[in-house]
């Protein structure tokens, strides 16, 4: 029952998506693209519009305007095909009374069309992957939050979807359960699955995700890698260096290429390197050692993702940073073919890597 997917189309493509709830504009012209095999973090405060966007992608809600495609299929026109391709894990796990883990998995396997031996085998595979086999007879409303999330993930994986949409999967989990869940997601990513995952815990997303999408008040405000965000879009690298001979370090830094002293500290200095190229950064360190500077610590400074996110929001608030998509009225949906952009894909949303003006040095 493994779903096949047309790899010539991006896994997810969202184009000027709008969603109105009465007068409330929950999603305002969101656009982004997720290539196959990528893990993309979807970040935003409560009410920012990430769950609404994810629900539209999962065919559980309906856009007021714009288009959304999963595996090349328009989510509005081909909901059945989209559902075949994706696995959905909601932010809260609804339970049933008087039902065991095995019965729960069996029910969903039946509901997804698995029959006979195929069903039994698939349930076993998923329960082993999510480490639920020992809990087969446990009532699901007696499970811990972490076990429940694993069960929910298992349910989403039953039909072996190629694309996973995980809404706050780590919310409310204890550290151990969080690590376990993260581990499972990493393995799924290593198997080539495309994962769109939302979370409040940015540091974890930074570790897991290839790129991050920041959404605020229904608009995408950042699209780029965690690395870029941590660097703040700068073309420089800031390093804090400690040495047993701080004076010698300072003396060396005055003449070394690519290096500017930002400040001298008690045990060393903060240096600015005029490149973000790791080879250049490594070369400067190597040269310091070769030149006889007794370096005991070399630390590249990075912003925490939370700080970066707050900075972005602050700059939008001040008007010094625009959102990636200007606000506008919800467009009248237009459609010609199921996937009008089949073939060559053009990214309509510039990532911050390509447009560093969206972020400024801290």
């Amino acid at each position, binding site marked *: 029952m493994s779903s096949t997917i047309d790899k010539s189309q991006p896994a997810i493509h969202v184009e000027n998506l709008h969603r109105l709830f009465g007068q409330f504009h929950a999603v305002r012209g969101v656009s982004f693209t997720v290539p196959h095999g990528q893990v993309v973090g979807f970040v935003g405060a409560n009410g920012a519009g990430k769950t609404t966007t994810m629900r539209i992608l999962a065919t559980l809600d*309906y856009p007021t305007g714009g288009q959304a495609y999963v595996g090349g299929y328009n989510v*509005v026109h081909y909901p059945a095909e989209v559902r075949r391709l994706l696995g959905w894990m909601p932010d809260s796990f609804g339970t049933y009374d008087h039902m065991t883990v095995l019965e729960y998995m069996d029910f969903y396997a039946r509901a997804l069309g698995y029959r006979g031996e195929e*069903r039994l085998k698939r349930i076993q595979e998923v329960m082993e992957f999510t480490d639920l086999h020992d809990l087969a007879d446990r009532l699901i409303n007696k499970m811990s939050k972490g076990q429940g999330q694993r069960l929910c993930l298992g349910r989403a994986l039953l039909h072996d979807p190629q694309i996973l949409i995980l809404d706050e999967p780590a919310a409310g989990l204890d550290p151990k359960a969080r690590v376990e869940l993260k581990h499972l997601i990493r393995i799924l990513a290593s198997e080539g699955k495309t994962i769109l995952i939302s979370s409040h815990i940015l540091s974890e997303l930074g570790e897991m995700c290839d790129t991050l999408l920041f959404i605020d008040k229904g608009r995408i405000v950042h699209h780029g890698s965690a690395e870029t965000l941590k660097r703040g879009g700068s073309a420089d690298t800031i390093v804090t260096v400690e040495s047993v001979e701080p004076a010698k370090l300072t003396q060396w830094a005055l003449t070394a290429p690519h290096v500017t002293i930002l400040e001298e500290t008690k045990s060393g200095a903060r240096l600015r390197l005029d490149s973000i190229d790791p080879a250049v950064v490594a070369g400067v360190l190597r040269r310091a050692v070769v030149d006889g500077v007794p370096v005991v610590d070399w630390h590249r400074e990075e912003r925490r993702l939370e700080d970066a996110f707050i900075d972005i929001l602050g700059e939008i608030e001040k008007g010094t940073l625009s959102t990636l998509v200007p606000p506008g009225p919800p467009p009248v949906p*237009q459609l010609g073919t199921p996937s009008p952009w089949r073939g060559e894909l053009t990214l309509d949303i510039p990532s911050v890597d390509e447009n560093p003006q969206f972020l400024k040095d801290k």
Partner: protein
Amino acid sequence: MTPSPLTPEPAGAAAGTVPEAATGIAEGPAFPQLSDFPDSLSPMLVKELRQGLKTWIFSGVFITLQIVLALSLLLAAAGGSAGSGKFMTQLSWIILVVALPLRAFGALSEEIRSRTLDALVLTKLSAFRISSGKWAALMAQSTLIALAILPYLIMRYFYGGVNVFAEIRMLLFMILAGGLHTAWLVCLSSQPGFILRVLLAAPGVILAWISIDGGSFLGLNISGSGSLDDGLSTSSLLYFAAASLLLTYLLLDIGATRIAPASANLATRKRLITLGALVILVVLEKSGVSGSGLKSFALALAFLAGADALTEAPATAPSTWVPFLRAGVPGRLAAWLFLPGWTTGLWFFLLAFSLAWFPQSHLHPFLFGAVVASTLLAPAALAHLLTREPARLFPYLLGTGALTVALGILIENVKSSAGSFMPAILSAFTPVSAAGCQESDLVVQVPAAILAGVWFLLLLILAFRASRATSAARREAQALVK
């Protein structure tokens, strides 16, 4: 898929992914497997049965009933008490028609409340399979209990005065009545408001309770020994079975409509079946088959389907338009009647009640129109004026409609008039009751026609306004069809 990365790997196994072939049935301790229900059963039915059979309500009712019936039988054997038979029948009625259906009260609302409906929608289960699966599971449990009652009913034969076939017919009648009551509650359970559901469920429960003597509204009576008098003939039972099964289907489909995604089209099938049934009723009536049952059934069918059609969310999903547009001109014409949404539902409503009028043709059509306008069109028009969320209006429309009918019946009873049925609102708008006019008088017909026309016109204007919300979907569907 890989084995769990959360447990230690067996010695020699490589870290990370494991080939698919290696993830089949693992060696070692046997993995627990479920094969208690065959694949051919609906997944929803299997799930509900697994859950339902574990509840204390089912096991409690089952055991208590066995004890009470055994004691009753022993009493009958000891003293030859004729009353014990009636007691057993009434007890069975309470359990099968009143108590067990009540478990459907939260059937769909529980799924909505616990947010499990989303996960269900993403499977291959349609909304109708969800609602019908819940109904079927409850009925399966009721049937199990009915089968447990059957031996006691038959054993009474040995104490005399009991017609076994009448007993079995009675039991079937109870199952059918219980099924209808269960379907009504499953339908109501699609509404999120608890108090509203209680208010709408209460009349059904009261009706089931006061019919404890076996459905007196069908002219049935239970003798002192507990068996039926001749009222419930096999033909009556068959008629009731057909009517109740149709109403059951309609109720389950109406409930499913309320939980279905926008892309689902449940309206076409539902409306076609309703119209088909109404046509059959008209043909039966024209063939000389008459009776209050046929008239009531035609009205009930039109009322239920009409209330549903007037409160369906408009078709904003292009996928619902596509089949109609693909069928060319006939399809576009059919869309006026069968496309989901209350904007087309208004025309369906008109046709359904036109058909439902034939069995009540003793009423002047203008008067009948005014009655319909008073009970359904007027509340619907007022509700659509006040809200843009039609799907929430169904219980409101049922409630106001039922209230109007009840008031009308009450007024007629108070007046002790043997004349035609005249709901309260109509009485207030026409001078018929005050002036004592006949239905044939123009002074009655003209206001009635105006009343019906005004409400219909108002709804038509509102429907035109609401249909603008569907124009984008229609355009997209047209592009898809091209």
